[in-house]
């Protein structure tokens, strides 16, 4: 029941916030924040949950569309719980980041914000494949509105591109889900969309491979994987700050989560067969994202491409198919959410204060805003994989794991670490260092809320970097299940 409440709370709060905050930005934001924080508190109670079969912490189900054996089946394990916490944490951060930026139609804005959060929570909790797909598509809609109504100059194109990319690939996944369901039906006579039942589906290997590709496509568009990533720079750049934070921090994770939750366990053999290709695709993403990030002039685009690069590691981690890489994947997703989210907050602050994201017009911000400079430096350094901060543990484990799977591709991907240094530091150089420009000559300072927000994002980055073990222990049972599903001979 907690699980349903977890989704329902932001869902029900959304219209309320819309109505009460329809023309009062402060009130709307605070109410939305309260809703998310309340939800976070609710999510924390899941730690005390227990009793369901390992690795599941809690499960809840009720019939939805019996014609197709569709249920509202929600369940959470360590992996899901981590994603839920990330969603709510970054959701709160996204709302905080929006407070001063969103002045127009605030109620409607936070309505969509809460809806997007609810949809994402649904994705992380749903274990009926139809329900999962439902939420998967659902989270797009509010995100589309966030971009298209409150976005920057080129928002229309970005919003439509984002929507078409993700929905079209989503439909392919729906087809794959249906293929899986019917195959299971033919096999067992039972029509169901339940994850637990479909795990047992006996599939023809070749058919399974095609189905796996269907899932893979949808998840890697969201991830995103090169060359399916081109919606991302546009969407991230054009979205308002809160939207960028949510997109980068949370929505991308649904792709990695989907790969871990569905692709690998349902199609272990097909995944193993496809893994060499996926590893190379991941490595290509790592390098391509890094090179393009370096080439950008727009602060937000740079950060967006850095996401492409980081998520390339996630793809590699999933398809390295061993426990280290999976642990790394989980950590990398959390770490990327925090650091990239924070970098988007910083980019948003720059845009808000100086009305430009063009690095040619920026420079020397450190002298005006030393605190912002320090925070930017911190997150840039975290993003380039400095040991002691969160991203390192993730990337290290992923690389160890993928090295076990394929040393050559890992060696290629590791070059991305050099790329990360190049683009992260050029960002700092061009925005914060060097002489001031006309644009940045005016003196401003961060207010307390902005400082708090960045600080609050920095703390978990350090904690995850130094004490990642509790998080890893939380995810471990779920990943151990994955390991047990892999065909013998795949794991090194």
């Amino acid at each position, binding site marked *: 029941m907690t699980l349903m409440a977890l989704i329902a709370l932001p869902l029900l709060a959304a219209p309320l916030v819309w109505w009460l905050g329809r023309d009062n930005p402060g009130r709307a934001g605070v109410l939305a924040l309260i809703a998310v924080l309340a939800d976070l508190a609710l999510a924390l109670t899941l730690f005390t949950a227990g009793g369901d079969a390992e690795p599941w912490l809690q499960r809840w189900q009720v019939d939805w569309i019996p014609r197709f054996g569709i249920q509202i089946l929600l369940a959470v394990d360590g992996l899901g719980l981590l994603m839920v916490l990330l969603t709510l944490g970054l959701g709160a951060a996204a709302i905080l980041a929006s407070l001063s930026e969103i002045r127009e139609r605030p109620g409607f804005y936070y309505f969509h914000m809460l809806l997007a959060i609810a949809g994402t929570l649904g994705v992380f909790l749903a274990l009926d494949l139809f329900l999962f797909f439902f939420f998967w*598509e659902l989270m797009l809609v509010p995100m589309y509105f966030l971009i298209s109504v409150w976005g920057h100059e080129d928002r229309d194109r970005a919003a439509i591109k984002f929507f078409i990319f993700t929905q079209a690939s989503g439909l392919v996944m729906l087809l794959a889900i249906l293929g899986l369901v*019917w195959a299971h039906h033919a096999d067992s006579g039972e029509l169901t969309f339940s994850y637990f039942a479909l795990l047992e589906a006996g599939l023809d290997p070749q058919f399974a491979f095609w189905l796996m590709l269907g899932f893979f496509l949808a998840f890697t568009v969201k991830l995103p994987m090169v060359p399916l990533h081109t919606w991302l720079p546009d969407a991230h750049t054009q979205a308002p700050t809160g939207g960028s934070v949510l997109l980068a921090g949370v929505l991308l994770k649904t792709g990695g989560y989907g790969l871990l939750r569905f692709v690998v366990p349902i199609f272990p053999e097909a995944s193993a067969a496809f893994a060499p290709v996926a590893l190379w695709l991941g490595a290509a993403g790592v390098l391509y994202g890094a090179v393009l990030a370096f080439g950008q002039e727009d602060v937000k685009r740079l950060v967006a491409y850095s996401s492409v690069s980081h998520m390339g590691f996630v793809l590699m981690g999933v398809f390295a198919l061993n426990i280290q890489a999976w642990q790394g994947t989980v950590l990398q997703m959390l770490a990327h959410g925090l650091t990239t989210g924070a970098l988007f907050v910083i980019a948003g602050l720059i845009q808000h204060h100086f009305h430009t994201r063009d690095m040619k017009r920026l420079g020397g911000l450190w002298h005006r805003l030393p605190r912002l400079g320090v925070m930017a430096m911190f997150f840039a350094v975290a993003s380039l994989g400095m040991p002691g901060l969160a991203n390192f543990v993730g990337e290290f484990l992923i690389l160890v794991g993928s090295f076990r799977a394929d040393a050559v591709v890992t060696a290629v991907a590791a070059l991305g670490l050099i790329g990360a240094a190049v683009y992260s530091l050029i960002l700092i150089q061009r925005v914060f260092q060097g002489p001031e420009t006309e644009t940045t000559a005016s003196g401003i300072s961060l207010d307390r809320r902005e400082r708090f927000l960045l600080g609050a994002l920095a703390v978990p980055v350090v904690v995850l970097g130094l004490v990642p073990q509790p998080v890893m222990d939380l995810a471990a049972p779920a990943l151990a299940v994955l390991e047990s599903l892999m065909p013998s001979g795949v794991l090194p």
Partner: protein
Amino acid sequence: MSMNDVQALIPLMILAGAGVVLVMLSAFVPRRGVVAALAGVSAVAFLLALLPYFGTQAVEVAELLVVDPLTLFFWTLLGIATLVSLIWLMVTPVAEHDGGAERYGLMVLAATGAMVLAAAQHFAALFLGLELLSVSLIILVAWQCRRALSIEAGLKYLVLSGLATGFLLFGMALIYAASGSLAFEITGRAHPAQVGELYWLAGMAMLLAGLVFKLSIVPLHFWTPDVYQGASLPVTGFLATVSKGAVLAVLVRLYFDMALADAGGLWMGLAVLAGASMLVGNWLALRQNQLKRLLAYSSIAHMGYALAALLAGGALALEAVVFYLAFYLATTLGAFGVLAVLSRPQHECERLDQLQGLYHHRPALALILTVMLFSLAGVPLTGGFIGKFYVLASGAASELWTLMALVIAGSAIGLYYYLRVVLALFRAPAETSSFRSATVPSTIVLVALTLVVLWLGLYPAPLSDGLARIAELALPG
């Protein structure tokens, strides 16, 4: 004709009688309101007259018509659609000199034709219903005779639908020649007829072409945008919903009664046409700024999806088509309703720029239209999503991967133009724009339609369970 038969015909009689009376009455009672009210009452009476049939066995009327659960479902659906269309006819402002009281009668007559179609199980009934529907529609389309566009639309519809009817009839004649019967089931059973299999098949091909013309399946779709544009908004709405729904209904019955799924060549031909419709319809709509034309093109694509679902065959396909029809009717009526509500006398709301910034002035209308557009696009929360799910589910069950790939491609292309309209709604309004506000009754109907669309999207279980039972009864074994 037994009493039983008569009883079965009561709802039809109500509608037919009302139609005739209304047409004549409008000659003497110049006030639109009275006629409109009576028309509405007749539609409600039709729906009420259906109540006794629920839960009864199928009733056949002299080989021609059958009133079974499927028919009842179609009748209910089409009856409600007719009622809503009549309401839109009422709320759309018209210029004084256009009068237009007769239109209510004509619409009721057309609806009668639609009901006959939906219950037909014999070619004669099919023909009669189709022509009653068509001829009334032609007059409705061409009604605003001071508008050149109306006349043009009427003539186009008349000539092309006449031609299509010619093919339909010739096809019937060939089937009759081959099988010796005009009843669906008997001719269907005669299908691998030793004598004239070629006649039968050729006849079937022509017959189907005549039917899918009404559904605007590519390449018989050319009339659609012009007729949509030329007719007045509520008539277009009626055309897009009741007329298409009735034809789809009879097509469903034909398809299953005659076991067309087994006629390889025909199936392939229909599949090609369905695929072409999905793509061409969406391509046509891509950069369209005329909303009626846009909806016309979108309907081409949607009928392609529905046809694809039908082609999957089996009980699930039947359910899929019927569900698709249900959500499509509700959604389309909602969309046309919003446009109708926003129209002014002689100045219909039909261009995209007329909608710009609607959200800022009439947020409720904008949100309703958004829901409808999302439903057409197949976005979750709306009936359109479940509709598309049904299509893909039936396609996947029959492993029609190519056709389903086309459904996905079409949907992806389609997103673009639906989202374009949505974008316009939420953009900053142009300075000159002003919007009418909705009246209470139209608001109620619009809200009801929205709730239906959302209900279909969120909790389709009651409907899907009902459809499963209907399909079970309609397709024993």
